[in-house]
């Protein structure tokens, strides 16, 4: 699924390149008018995390950002005559992934099966989580050229979830059914309960993006941006996970400036 989107993106950009007539001349003119086009490719490192970490989370036992890529175009329009201030936007496909293992204590949870049956209670033990999300993201950033080589960007971004997986299992622990004094149900000897909340992921995601681009050569940029999600990963009426989880990702990558 993700590969398909990336392929589409590449094809779209290739098509755009073919259509341009005398591209060098057009680019020179648009640059002179304050326009700048970048093709960017990079990786996303980060995670979906509750903030602050709820008291129920006792330790994070493992974490792997896995390989999460982003690919997109940026368009910047430098507005003022000195070409110091500008506005950036663009479009990018990006993965936001993570796998974690955490140990929780007395963690309120409710597992709802596809047929409506519920297992509700307080879990103490291990929780494995795997997130693999693909978003189409549109940033709207204010840009400031701090020096000929450095430019800084800040502003909101808006993402649409194209494809998402949020799944995992609970293992090596026990459930107190209903509340902390309920029947104790052990999950030991390899007993696990798997869950899959992919269907409850929110489609629309937004947040704040801040970052810096550094022009290494006339056409090559290195960039790092932090994107901080401001709405919950899950739909509003999804109660199984009692706290909100926010995507916080650092993007690192290269850009080619036309």
């Amino acid at each position: 699924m993700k590969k398909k989107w990336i392929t589409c993106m590449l094809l779209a950009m290739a098509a755009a390149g073919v259509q341009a007539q005398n591209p060098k001349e057009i680019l020179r003119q648009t640059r002179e008018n304050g326009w700048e086009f970048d093709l960017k490719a990079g990786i996303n490192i980060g995670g979906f995390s509750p903030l602050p970490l709820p008291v129920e989370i006792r330790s994070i036992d493992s974490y792997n950002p896995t390989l999460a890529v982003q690919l997109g175009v940026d368009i910047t329009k430098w507005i003022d005559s000195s070409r110091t201030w500008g506005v950036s936007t663009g479009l990018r496909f990006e993965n936001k992934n993570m796998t974690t293992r955490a140990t929780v204590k007395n963690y309120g949870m409710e597992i709802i099966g596809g047929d409506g049956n519920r297992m509700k209670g307080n879990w103490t033990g291990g929780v494995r989580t795997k997130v693999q999300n693909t978003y189409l993201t549109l940033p709207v950033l204010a840009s400031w050229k701090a020096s000929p080589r450095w430019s800084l960007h800040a502003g909101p971004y808006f993402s649409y979830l194209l494809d998402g997986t949020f799944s995992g299992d609970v293992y090596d622990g026990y459930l107190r059914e209903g509340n902390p004094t309920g029947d104790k149900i052990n999950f030991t000897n390899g007993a696990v309960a798997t869950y899959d909340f992919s269907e409850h992921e929110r489609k629309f995601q937004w947040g704040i993006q801040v970052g810096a681009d550094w022009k290494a050569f006339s056409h090559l940029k290195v960039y790092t941006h932090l994107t901080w999600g401001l709405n919950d990963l899950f739909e509003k009426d999804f109660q199984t996970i009692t706290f909100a989880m926010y995507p916080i990702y650092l993007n690192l990558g290269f850009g080619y400036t036309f």
Partner: protein
Amino acid sequence: MNYKPLLYAFLLGSASVSCIREEAPNAEADITGCTLPGNVLIQDSIDVDVSYDESLNAYPIYVQVKKGTDCSQLAPTFTLTPGATIEPASGSVQDFTSPVRYTVTSEDGQWHRTYSISIEEEKVKEIPTTFHFEDTRTENGYYVFYETSGTQELTWASGNGGFRLAINDAEPSEYPTTLEEKGFSGKCAKLVTRTTGSLGAMVGMPIAAGNLFIGKFNLSNALSNSLKATQLGVEFYHKPLKLKGYYKYTPGNQFYENGGYTNRKDQFDIYAIFYENKDENGQSVMLDGTLPLANFVHPNLVALAQYKDTQVLNSWQPFEMTFDYDRYGKSVDLDRLNAGDYNISIVISSSKDGATFEGAPGSTLWIDEMSIIYE
């Protein structure tokens, strides 16, 4: 590969708020252990892993003490969930001529659990040997069969408690082990192999066979090790010879095994065991549902009765099984028999391999008018 330091560095860099916070006080309020001072206990340990009793509005703990123990002055001591407190205090002297209620309060002060502790002098507890399957009570939303005859009493155990975890809004009649109004004579027990829905599948237990057994179902291990959770046996002061009764059986249409359906024909299972309930060091021995997988080989087994005849379908059939003592080559010691050193158990299931989650949903076994013939 572990990228944990990366995550910490990242979270630290991005927000100082995202650290692991100080641990909250415990919310649980359990008695995790109970002992009595002096050498007065019959058992090696007191079973504190008990199910809630609605009629008592408490978790009942039953303790037997040696003959001649003064039950009006006993001072049980408890271990509790760390940080929890108990009222009356652990080690305080109480009058146990009637049950004493203890309340445990969790460390965070938010949660309470009330236990009712009964302490009795050891006595012979005979079970009835004829079973009519007329009497049930409803506990936690499902039927529990019990049999009384004079002072004799037996409550049948079943796996219904485990089923309830997966299917929580089932009617009593929708459980694997349930009651049928029209039996061979009066009412009877009806055991049905059921599917366990999405949650059952989630924990790798997609079907549940209806079962009845003499012993205890340990709910806390129902999902981790359902075979070991099936604890078989109660003291029996006679040498059993035969197990008789009536059955009616209809197997389900499609057999479930290894994640799919096959044409295999389902079969029911009835077996009974007689065994020594102490090992050579005098420690209690409780056999469990793993026994059939071990081909009924265990050093404590004395006799085995198994249903081996043709399984006639769809009509009431009498059955009679003989306890085979030759198989184990052991004699029954009369003194030990009178001292309560032998256990008996009867296990009935609507799917022979239901314990390993193989069977045909819909397989139904009706059981009625069963009796143990003994010497």
